[in-house]
């Protein structure tokens, strides 16, 4: 091989090595002068072309030009690398915090309420609404509550000076709807209720309920079970089971209490479900014929089920909250968790 070509190959290797170690544009300029300047190593070698034997000149010339192009390409790459580095160095510290524009958070109680309403709407229920200040007739009498039933006691129910009370349940809304409309009726009534309970970990003087009512021809206890099973699975997950136990409420007959299988231990038994695997949720049942008679529905034609549930209770189960008062303190460190 021609010695000139070999020399040029060596210069290319030198240039590449020198460029790789560069860290500034100043060094790059110095390097450019060293190789490509008027007296640079590459330039000088090219000048030596004149001394090459004419028979080799053509081949050597092509090789020399290739080497020169390679050196220039290496310089261009080094320049790009250095410039990118300089931009990066002078760029943003993208790890600094952004200006927060977050959406507000939903309170766990209203989240359960909204979820429940959404599920029941999907099942064909319509939301109904009624007053917080309720007549004793709608809150108790029309619901077949005996005259001397303890729930009417001023120990348990708040009364107002005009003889009304603060509703202790949202069931009076059901009565109001039945009074104003003939069946079929398929409603849920979400809302705030009041009971004269001294606040502690499990009691609150006001709380939220959602109650449902479905009156139609041949509505049965099996339908009630199907409805609550569907609700439980939609709200808490497909594995949740529903258990019915007989109970007593003046408003319904048969009356039941229903339990959900414990979501915390999957029904195996834990501290929250008192080792039973079941969480007591609330009451339900088939609407008592006396209630139908009070609102002018013919109990021979219509049957219906009614159910209720405490929203706080479900929120506490859902989020493993042990003290209901946390839900009304509004400590942002607490609310930020939902």
């Amino acid at each position, binding site marked *: 091989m021609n010695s000139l070509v070999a020399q040029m190959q060596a210069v290319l290797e030198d240039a590449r090595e020198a460029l790789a170690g560069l860290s500034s544009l100043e060094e790059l300029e110095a390097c450019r002068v060293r190789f490509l300047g008027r007296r640079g190593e590459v330039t000088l070698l090219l000048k030596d072309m004149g001394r090459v034997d004419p028979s080799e000149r053509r081949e050597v010339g092509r090789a020399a030009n290739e080497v020169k192009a390679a050196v220039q390409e290496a310089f261009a790459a080094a320049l790009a690398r250095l410039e990118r580095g300089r931009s990066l160095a002078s760029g943003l510290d993208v790890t600094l915090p952004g200006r927060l524009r977050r959406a*507000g958070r939903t309170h766990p109680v209203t989240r359960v309420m909204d979820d429940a309403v959404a599920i029941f*709407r999907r099942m064909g229920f319509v939301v109904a609404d009624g007053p917080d200040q309720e007549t004793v007739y709608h809150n108790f009498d029309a619901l077949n509550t005996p005259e001397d039933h303890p729930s009417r006691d001023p120990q348990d129910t708040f009364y107002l000076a005009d003889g009304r009370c603060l509703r202790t349940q949202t069931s009076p809304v059901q009565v109001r709807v039945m009074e104003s409309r003939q069946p079929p009726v398929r409603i849920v009534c*979400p809302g705030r209720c009041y009971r004269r309970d001294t606040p502690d970990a499990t009691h609150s*003087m006001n709380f939220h309920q959602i109650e449902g009512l479905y009156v139609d021809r041949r509505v049965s*206890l099996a339908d009630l079970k*199907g409805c609550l099973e569907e609700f439980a699975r939609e709200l808490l997950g497909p594995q949740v089971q529903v258990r019915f136990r007989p109970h007593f409420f003046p408003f319904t007959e048969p009356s039941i209490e229903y339990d959900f299988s414990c979501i915390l231990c999957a029904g195996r038994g834990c501290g929250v479900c008192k080792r039973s695997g079941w969480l007591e949720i609330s009451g339900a049942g088939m609407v008592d*014929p006396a209630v139908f008679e009070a609102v002018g529905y013919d109990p021979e034609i219509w049957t219906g089920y009614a159910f209720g549930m405490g929203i706080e209770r479900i929120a506490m189960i859902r989020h493993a909250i042990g003290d209901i008062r946390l839900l*009304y303190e509004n400590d942002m460190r607490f609310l930020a968790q939902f």
Partner: protein
Amino acid sequence: MKTSLRWLQNYVETAWDAPELALRLTMAGLEVEGMEETPALPETVVAARILRREPHPNADRLSVCTVDAGGAGPMAVVCGAPNCDLGRVVPCALPGSRLPSGMTVKRASIRGVESAGMLCAEDELGLGTDHSGLMVLGEEVAAGTLLRELIPEDAVIDWEVTPNRPDWNCHIGIAREIAAVAGDASRFRLPEFPSRETAAARAGDWTRVEVRDPDLCPRYIARIIRNVRVGPSPEWMRRALKAVGIRPISNVVDVTNYVMMECGQPLHAFDYDLLHENRIVVRRAAEGETIVTLDGVERTLTPDALLICDGAKPVALAGVMGGANSEIRSETTTVLLESACFDPANIRRTSRCTGLNSESSYRFERGIDIEMTAWAARRAASLIAELAGGEVLAGAVDVYPDPWRTFPVTARFARIEALLGVTAPPAAVARHLGALGLTVTGMTDTAITVSVPSHRRYDLLREADLIEEVARLHGLDNIPGSQATAVLGGMRADDRYYGIEQVRAELRAVGLDETLTYSFLNPASAVQGTGVTEEQVVRPVNPLSAELGAMRPSLIPGALMTVAHNVARGNDHLAFFELGRVLVHAPGLPEERNQAAVALTGCRHPERYGSEKAEEADFYDLKGILEGWFAARGLAPDCRATEHPAFEAGQCAALALGGREVAVLGRVCGDLVADIRLKHPLYLALVEVDAVLAIEMPDRRHRSLPLYPAVARDISFLAGRELTHREVLDAIRALREPLIESAGIFDIYEDDTLGGNRRSMAYTITYRDPSRTLTDERVNGLQERLRAHLAQTLPITLR
């Protein structure tokens, strides 16, 4: 209601252990509140009689007792209990006894004295919690008796009895239910006992009963037992009562309680000789009449209360509590036993008025089995004669003018199936009702008729009641849930919850966290900053406490409490809302309406750094939040300065939509937040949500996008500070120039050099012609006209 498993087994054959029983009855509607199991005691725990007690030679607190434990003669036991008195019969654990606590008793030398066993307290045997002294057994118990024979293995279950099933308030009632749940009424039987009556004397000759108010006392039975010796009950009786939570008193009184726990009939024993003329009169109290009840308290009565009297004076408050003047004493020799039935509502009233609750009033209030009254009297008389000696006079005085008669109830099979959603074959229905002890008196292809026994006379009245029983005994677990059917459309236009849900979502979307506060407020602070007067506040007549005596008339106090709670815990940067109902009685206002309170305090960007970190949120941040929310609903409220009791003067505004004020906002007055250690000013807004929701959605038809470009020109002027931005915009609008597309402020400059309370305001005016491109000349002309118009109509100096 507590039952002992052993006690129950006197009336029902069952192989179920306590947990099984608890589960079975829970699923039948009788819930368990608690369960306590008495362990099986080891064979080496025996009754021992203390023969001698001497102080321990080496320890002040210990005694050395010589006891007869029934074995090979007296033995010495070291004891630390204070009550190891001579003659007492107490449990003694012999060496090798492994006690329920896990400890094993050994023969040991205690401070130099050999002890051949250990005398036990209740808790050491797992029989209770008492550790104050040795457990004392009845003196009749023979030394050496195995304690496990005296106190057998047992389980006490505390049941939560629903008010519709008063028949569950006794062992017999629960035993009946066990038989029913087991599907076989014949497993249940009433106990048999000798009458112990003497033929020598008749009760009817010894006493008379006069019931003056039969509506309040439908049945009254008196029996007489003479020659009794009042004293402590035997150990079995004392244990039985203690197990179910009743304190043993004396043999006569214990029997009345035992029979009540057995069959649900409350009984009362009078000292016959203390009854004037030895007779009973049942009558209403006179107004202001008094009686000293057994608890020693004198009670003043009204004619609502029913009294049991003798020939001269009241001797008991009927169904609630006996009188102190006629109670059984240790010297009583003749007992008049009352077994009666009283009106539930009347007893409930009396109990409530006097504040007296007893096991007896509890049962009368809920209703007792009027047909068991005679049985209970016979049973108790026999037991008294058995435990206290003496004899029962023949017969009873039974005033029962209108005997109860059974009645039929019919249930249709088709109705059962419709209501329960399961098939109900007639044979299965008959089997279930039969298991409850109901007698089937009629059966057709379509319906079944039963006659109701007296113990179910309060709750089995109608078809629905029978259907409930069928559901219970069929087992609710055996009713499969139907597939919840899909129904089209769950929401209607009049769904008010949807509007509220949307507003909450919109307020969250503008960055506000959701809170919920109590509806009850301190009356003093409930009206502060609300503009509501104290008379307008809704107050429960029976608040939980005076501090919780007012219903919130506004969400402002709740928001202030939320701020206070958080600031006190170092949460200084707050942006939250509450949406809820407020109650108020004020003219022109609905008595219940939905409000939203929005609170803002702290820094805009505490998450950032440098000066930005310290930038405080101000009035315009809150206003912007509301404007952003309204904009999302397509609404642009009018804003004007206003005054409001919650807000600082000069930093308060009202927002109106369609001329109706829907919100007020501002910086909260210093005196409202005096107790809160705010680090930053607090801004609050109060929005009338119902009013906002009532506003018709604005015209939502779209407008074509412009085809030609707009041209912007600035205009600036000096003006007095009293000139508002709003007035400038109004003046621009007043020109009614259709080519002005918009006007927006871009600078306000205040400087002393401007002189006399003036500021410089600068606006950008955007011109656009929808049909062509505007030329410079055209815009210059328009701008000149606007400048002239403003200079003419506003007190400004153009720059």
